[in-house]
């Protein structure tokens, strides 16, 4: 009997699942779209992972991360429920021990994590603004009639990227339209866009903090070669992009589940659990909290969103 550990990263756009064995090696991984339904996506991830491995593995720990980590953690009765920042740092450290800076640009958020001697010393996340995230790039790709997958290669062809406002998406977009209508070449505009993402990130997320190498770049946008190129140009350091960069969060929580003091034994049929949520507004007092009741197998297991602590 071999032991294995499951890590699931349920993001706003995609859900990632990883199975690690005793030596923290990846034995199976999968990547699917969340499609606005985290419970369904999780069930799918588990059954996909199950098909990929031999039947002699016993599941000893589960970790969840990502924006739906609490809900899924409750559903699976997870050993570890951790935020994305810690999970990404732990996951990356398990592969690149020397890393000092982790850049991450995802679909909805972007973050930067600073490490020193294998320890997080500082981090920041984008706050109000969606500028410089994957969703902005993909919407601009659509506007320019280019597939997002080709974006990076086209950008690298350009010799003279146009200057595009980097502060804010609204300004960036109007700049982009002006430049396109003025007759600039498409590859120069695309290169300019990649450059503006980088500048925006360094302005709004990194906020002028000192970035030391080795630098690892993760998240969906890291697959864009143009953005990687301009990061290297701006920071003057080589940027490491891992093929498994998108799985780092999941790997991180799986490692944490492996390390956890409490070990449980899980069965594989948890993917058939009946799991339901109901939202309603409490009229008990003037707070009018929006409550979410969570039912597992028809039984109320938790209520979220109360301010007064009644539930």
């Amino acid at each position, binding site marked *: 009997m071999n032991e294995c550990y499951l890590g699931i990263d349920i993001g706003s756009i995609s859900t990632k699942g990883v199975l690690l064995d005793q030596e923290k090696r990846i034995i199976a991984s999968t990547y699917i779209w969340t499609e606005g339904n985290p419970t369904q996506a999780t069930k799918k991830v588990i059954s996909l992972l199950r098909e990929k491995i031999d039947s002699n593995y016993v599941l000893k720990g589960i970790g969840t991360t990502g924006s739906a980590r609490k809900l899924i953690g409750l559903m699976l009765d997870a050993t570890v429920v951790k935020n994305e*920042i810690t999970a990404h740092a732990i996951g990356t450290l398990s592969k690149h021990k020397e890393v000092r800076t982790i850049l991450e640009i995802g679909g909805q958020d972007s973050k930067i994590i600073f490490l020193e001697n294998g320890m997080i010393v500082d981090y920041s996340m984008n*706050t109000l603004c969606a500028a410089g995230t994957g969703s902005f790039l993909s919407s601009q790709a659509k506007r320019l009639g280019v597939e997002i997958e080709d974006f990076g290669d086209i950008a690298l062809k350009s010799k003279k990227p146009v200057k595009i406002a980097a502060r804010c998406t609204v300004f960036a977009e109007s700049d982009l339209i002006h430049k396109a209508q003025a007759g600039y070449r498409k590859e120069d505009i695309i290169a300019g866009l990649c450059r503006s993402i980088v500048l925006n990130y360094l302005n709004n997320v990194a906020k002028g903090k000192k970035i030391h190498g080795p630098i690892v770049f993760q998240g969906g946008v890291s697959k864009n070669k143009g953005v990687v190129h301009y990061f290297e140009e701006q920071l003057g350091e080589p940027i490491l992009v891992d093929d498994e960069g998108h799985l780092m969060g999941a790997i991180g929580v799986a490692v944490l589940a492996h390390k956890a003091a409490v070990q449980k034994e899980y069965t594989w049929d948890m993917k058939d659990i009946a799991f339901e949520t109901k939202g309603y507004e409490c009229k008990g007092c003037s707070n*009018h909290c929006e409550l979410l009741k969570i039912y597992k197998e028809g039984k109320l297991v938790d209520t979220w969103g109360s301010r007064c602590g009644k539930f």
Partner: protein
Amino acid sequence: MKKIVTYPQMGDYNVPIYYLLTHILRCEIRKPPKISDRTVELGNKYSPTFVCMPFKYTLGTFLESLEEGANVLIQLGGGCRYGYYYALQKEIIKEQGYSFKLINLVTEGKSDLKKIIKDFKGIDPSFSILKSAYYLFITMKMIKYMDKLDHQIRKNIGFEQKKGEHEYVKQKMLTCFEHTKGYFPLLFTYLSYKRKFKKIKKNKKKCLKVGIIGELYTIMEPFANYDLEMMLSQYGIEVTRFTNATYLLFQKRKKVKKYLKKVKRFSKNRLGADALDNVGRLVYLGEKKYDGAIHIKSSFCTPEIGVMPILRRVSEEYKIPLLFFSFDTNTSKVGIETRIEAFYDMIEMRKQNE
């Protein structure tokens, strides 16, 4: 027309203000409603988008009170945009068709006593200066006692054995304060509750210590900072907070001069509102080797935005982790929880590796 007086809501300070007003004015005093999602919604609807959050909260409170029949509103002013709140709020409420009177007690950072007395005489012709001075004295004492106990509660609430006990005792204490009969009964209540708080069973060991700095309203009204102190205490963190009414009323003037000397390296100017104070506090936290600091402000708070680069420099120099939060009326709590959790993990890891 019968006069009904009300004032904005901020933390637990509605108790001493209520006490003061009921004793010096012979007319109905209405406690402001607790801030709820509806308050915020109302305030948001009628405020300019880019105004700071306390404006929206206080306007929402006023509108809710007016709906319930209040017609005399009391507002204060401060050294930043806060100084213009009353003027703009007056115009906005007027446009809603209410007939009311708005009294502003502080203009350009100074209180004009003659004007205040005139205003209060306008509400209640039998207003007596001597009586007011006496009750003002008791109220100030009450605020001081509240803040003193609050300081203790913040240190211990994360470690109570029976959950919610501190909060329960505190609510009882506030009720007693509200019905206090004079200075000596107040002192007596204070001392007895001080003992009660001490008696609450706690299991406190070595723990993480975090200081909260930032803009005053966001710090003092728990609804505005999404119960940040509560969230931190659930992680077993000891919270230190500097801003309270005692500080603003009695200590600020002295402390600012001290801070100005202390932080000469980082800033030579006062920077407006509480900005300089926050630099001084962060230096203090760094010197005392706190595990971290959290800077909170409402979005568009100009003095605090201006001080952020300086704070970043202080945090680098003293190697104290600093987390920034900017709250507006629609920030979701989930994002805040994620950042707090990551912050906790970070300072915990640091502590272990020391």
